[in-house]
């Protein structure tokens, strides 16, 4: 009846089912695999052949057969789990799981402790890996070299366009040498709200040098370096955001700084993650500004030719710099400083990250110690069970293996929880870390970080699991059997637990010292005298389009009008503008005292310059030390005037009065200025750096200072500065509807942000230290509480024999505090040996600061004492009757 071949339809049905079976069969243990497969194949063939008797095949029944075939999957799984029953390791696993589930609270405590440690480590490792270890996302990134212009030994200045062109054409070590500006912005206007974006001008070969291909369109051509071509390349992010991913944007015209530019390309997303630039334009190399060798504003990127090293390239570029200096006087002493591109991107964040990674490593060690104590305590509670199992013939190896399996299960579960935790921690870091961490957008958990987490989890479980496992199977079987049912701690176990407590205290001491030093350093930093009053001060930047404001007179008329109107806003006490707002960039120039021109370049003096409007010093509340500040009578046609800061006055004239002395300042042309006043020092570059030598010029004197097309407004207001942002914007709009008000911010916030990096790492380390302290205290408490339970009989007897509760109380406290003290002493040693790694991160605090050491020692001792009190009080309540009855 069945002795015929299947029809084509039936064949196809059979093949489909067979494919399912053949896929699933890999799950079946090898021993059973053939039988398993043959049974399915036999049934399937039989059923298909039955269906094949009617034509066409019943679709419904065919589908049911396929559905039924899917049951092969649970069947295969069942054979797999059935096989596991026989595997000793899986028996251990089952036993371990059962053991864990039987004490869910204990397991939760262990997993919480460990996953905290593992999660923090995993997150920190991801950061270190993404920022420091992973290669930059460019083509062969190791060949890329970053170049600063350099005047003296270690300064990191820029390079002028003519110098760049010479370096590019004359060198033979780079296969490609490119340049771009690193600070810059542009205003996009047109259909949308005007918006200030980060912009950069770059040489035509810049993207090719990095090995970045445009996402759409093309990059700049060599001809576009010759100027006159208004083309722009936009970032992927800007394209998506402002132009809503317009597919036809290439070839369209957009208004950049008030001039139409043709969009020729879109950069790929990878560039958004590595460079904060939204609009790229080509460097026009033939304009007056780009033909001056003294105007340094480019940074260079080169791709080394195969086999060329950085020192070789440095020597080669130094030779070219020498030739240039021989031809051009202004090039004297100028050269290039070459560093690996990576180093330029990462900056100085490396040590900080490694310190933090070390700190979370310590936290994990403490967590391990804590869990080891817990397991040890549990192991002695289970010593009876172990002894019985040994007596029944279980080998020691088997018992150790089983206990380790428990640890590994706990470790791996904690690892999984830790990964989840790390995921959220990283999201948090990405949210708050903007500007604090280079390559922040690249920070993620990748395969390497996952592998790291798993290895750490396994290593962790071996560390915390080994001690209790070896303890649990110690050989004095008879003794244990005898004492079954009674509770008495063995000395060996107690010593190990003591040592764990000491280690935890010592490690957390080291962490607390690190955190304490950073906290102290941050406090010092935040209480540095800045030289002006940041309270109730609103600042914002306004930048005028050079296309419509051509002369200095036009520009200055605008500032006067704007400030006059701003001062009428109700609640504004005073207002002024400056080219150099504290903590917001700056520029400097050369000068000499009239009649004392420098004999050589080495004697050239320079100072930071700031061009300010009327009322600047009053608005900022910068104290006038001598003389006067600018007045409306200091006109452009009058004699040049300047106000200098105290530091510069001291440097130039020592104790003599500088008032009335004259300086010759290089603003392209020499500008002679009489010093009319001296004001207090201002820490322009942030609290951590010293106040620079500073010369102030008056914006009403057009020959003084550089362009005032971009100024920072400062408004002293009554009340909350943020309430004045929108009135200020309204006033600006009445004058110039197309000019945006950029980065309006309260000065106090700018100050606070300027130490945000320090605050961030301090908070992180303090957080780690807090966790460490908590773990150590819990560990100490747990150990003592356990010891008191173990010794309750002894305590009872003591009380029965007449010991007063106070004496018992002291006894327990002493037991705990001896450990704390040993831990603190070891911690002092450890801290002295390690805090020097923090030196570079500290401001005005020595790494061995005695206040911090004393404070931490005291805090830790008190915390330890608190942990001892509860168990000690419990010990005094030991019942003498109960204790005696047990004897």
């Amino acid at each position, binding site marked *: *009846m*069945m*002795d*015929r*071949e299947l029809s084509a339809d039936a064949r196809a049905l059979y093949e489909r089912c067979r494919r399912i079976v053949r896929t699933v069969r890999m799950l079946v243990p090898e021993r059973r695999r053939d*039988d398993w497969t*043959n*049974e399915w*194949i*036999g*049934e399937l*063939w*039989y*059923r298909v*052949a039955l269906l094949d008797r009617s034509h066409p095949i019943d679709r419904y029944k065919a589908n049911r057969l396929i559905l*039924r*075939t*899917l*049951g*092969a*999957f*649970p*069947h295969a799984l*069942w*054979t797999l789990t*059935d096989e596991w029953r026989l595997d000793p390791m899986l028996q251990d696993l089952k036993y371990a799981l059962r053991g864990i589930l039987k004490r869910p609270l204990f397991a939760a405590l262990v997993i919480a402790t460990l996953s905290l440690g593992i999660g923090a480590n995993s997150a920190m490792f991801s950061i270190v890996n993404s920022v420091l270890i992973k290669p930059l996302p460019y083509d062969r990134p190791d060949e890329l070299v970053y170049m600063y212009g350099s005047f003296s030994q270690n300064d990191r200045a820029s390079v002028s366009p003519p110098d760049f062109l010479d370096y590019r054409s004359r060198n033979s070590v780079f296969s490609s040498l490119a340049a771009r500006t690193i600070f810059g912005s542009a205003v996009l206007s047109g259909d949308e709200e005007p918006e200030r974006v980060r912009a950069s001008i770059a040489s035509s070969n810049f993207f090719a040098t990095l090995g970045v291909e445009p996402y759409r369109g093309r990059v700049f051509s060599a001809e576009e370096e010759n100027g006159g071509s208004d083309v722009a390349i936009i970032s992927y992010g800007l394209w998506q955001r402002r132009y809503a991913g317009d597919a036809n944007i290439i070839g369209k015209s957009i208004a950049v700084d008030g001039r139409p530019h043709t969009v020729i390309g879109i950069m790929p997303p990878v560039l958004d993650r590595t460079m904060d630039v939204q609009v790229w334009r080509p460097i026009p190399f033939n304009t007056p500004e780009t033909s001056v060798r003294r105007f340094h504003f480019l940074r260079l990127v080169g791709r080394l030719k195969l086999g060329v090293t950085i020192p070789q390239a440095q020597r080669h570029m130094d030779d070219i710099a020498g030739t240039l200096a021989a031809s051009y006087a202004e090039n004297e002493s100028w050269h290039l400083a070459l560093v690996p591109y990576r180093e330029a991107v990462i900056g100085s964040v490396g040590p900080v990250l490694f310190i933090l990674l070390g700190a979370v490593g310590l936290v994990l060690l403490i967590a391990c110690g804590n869990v080891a104590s817990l397991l040890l305590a549990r192991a002695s509670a289970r010593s009876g069970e172990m002894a019985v199992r040994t007596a029944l013939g279980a080998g020691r190896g088997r018992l150790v293996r089983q206990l380790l399996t428990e640890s590994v299960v706990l470790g791996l579960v904690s690892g999984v929880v830790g990964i989840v935790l790390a995921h959220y921690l990283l999201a948090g870091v990405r949210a708050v870390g903007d500007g604090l961490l280079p390559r922040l957008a690249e920070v993620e958990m990748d395969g390497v970080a996952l592998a790291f987490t798993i290895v750490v989890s396994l290593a962790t479980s071996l560390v915390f699991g080994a001690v209790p496992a070896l303890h649990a199977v110690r050989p004095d079987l008879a003794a244990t059997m005898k004492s079954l049912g009674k509770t008495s701690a063995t000395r060996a176990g107690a010593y190990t637990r003591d040592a764990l407590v000491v280690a935890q205290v010592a490690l957390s001491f080291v962490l607390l010292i690190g955190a304490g030093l950073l906290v102290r350093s941050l406090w010092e930093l935040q209480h540095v005298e800045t030289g002006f009053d940041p309270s109730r001060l609103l600042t914002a930047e306004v930048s005028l389009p050079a296309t419509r404001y051509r002369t200095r007179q036009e520009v200055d008329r605008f500032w006067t009008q704007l400030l006059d109107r701003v001062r009428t806003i109700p609640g504004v006490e005073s207002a002024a503008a400056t080219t150099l707002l504290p903590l917001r960039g700056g520029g400097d120039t050369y000068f000499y005292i009239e009649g004392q021109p420098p004999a050589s370049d080495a004697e050239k003096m320079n100072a930071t310059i700031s061009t300010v409007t009327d009322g600047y010093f009053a608005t900022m509340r910068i104290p006038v030390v001598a003389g006067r500040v600018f007045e409306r009578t200091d006109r452009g046609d009058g004699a040049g005037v300047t106000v200098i800061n105290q530091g510069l006055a001291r440097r130039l004239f020592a104790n003599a009065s500088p008032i009335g002395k004259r300086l010759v300042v290089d603003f392209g042309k020499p500008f002679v200025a009489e010093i009319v006043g001296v004001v207090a020092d201002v820490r322009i570059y942030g609290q951590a750096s010293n106040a620079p030598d500073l010369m102030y010029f008056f914006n009403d004197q057009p020959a003084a200072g550089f362009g005032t097309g971009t100024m920072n407004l400062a408004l002293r207001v009554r009340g909350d500065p943020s309430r004045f942002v929108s009135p200020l914007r309204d006033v600006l709009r009445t004058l110039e509807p197309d000019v945006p008000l950029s980065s309006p911010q309260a000065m106090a916030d700018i100050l606070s942000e300027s130490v945000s990096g320090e605050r961030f790492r301090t908070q992180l380390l303090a957080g780690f230290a807090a966790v460490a302290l908590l773990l150590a205290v819990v560990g100490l408490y747990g150990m003592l509480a356990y010891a008191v339970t173990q010794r309750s009989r002894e305590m009872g007897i003591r009380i029965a024999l007449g010991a007063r509760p106070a004496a018992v109380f002291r006894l327990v406290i002493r037991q705990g505090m001896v450990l704390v003290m040993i831990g603190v002493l070891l911690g002092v040693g450890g801290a002295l040996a390690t805090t020097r790694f923090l030196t570079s991160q500290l401001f005005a605090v020595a790494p061995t600061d005695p206040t911090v050491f004393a404070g931490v020692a005291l805090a830790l001792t008190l915390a330890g004492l608190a942990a001892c009190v509860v168990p000690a009080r419990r010990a005094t309540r030991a019942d003498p009757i109960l204790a005696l009855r047990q004897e």
Partner: protein
Amino acid sequence: MKPLSLSALAVLGAVSRSVRYGFDIMDATGLPSGTVYPVLGRLERDGYVRSKWESHAVAQREKRPPRRYYEITAAGSRALATSVEHYRTLGERLGLVTRKPSAG
């Protein structure tokens, strides 16, 4: 002895009524393949059924691969009877089944 689970009871019942092949047992019990095969595996492990392969000669004559079939063992029959009794008692206790009065 623990009574058989209800699905095991159904499968073992089918086998005892000479429904011998896996897919036929599914048809007889209405249980899905993902349940029937593991149950058969467990029953075989516990010694309540034994499985055999039909003879190659038969299969070859019909030009198809051989099928595996299941038979109930003596222990299986006992377990079946005990479990049926167990569930009947349970049903009575819950007032779901009434035992016919025994003759006499």
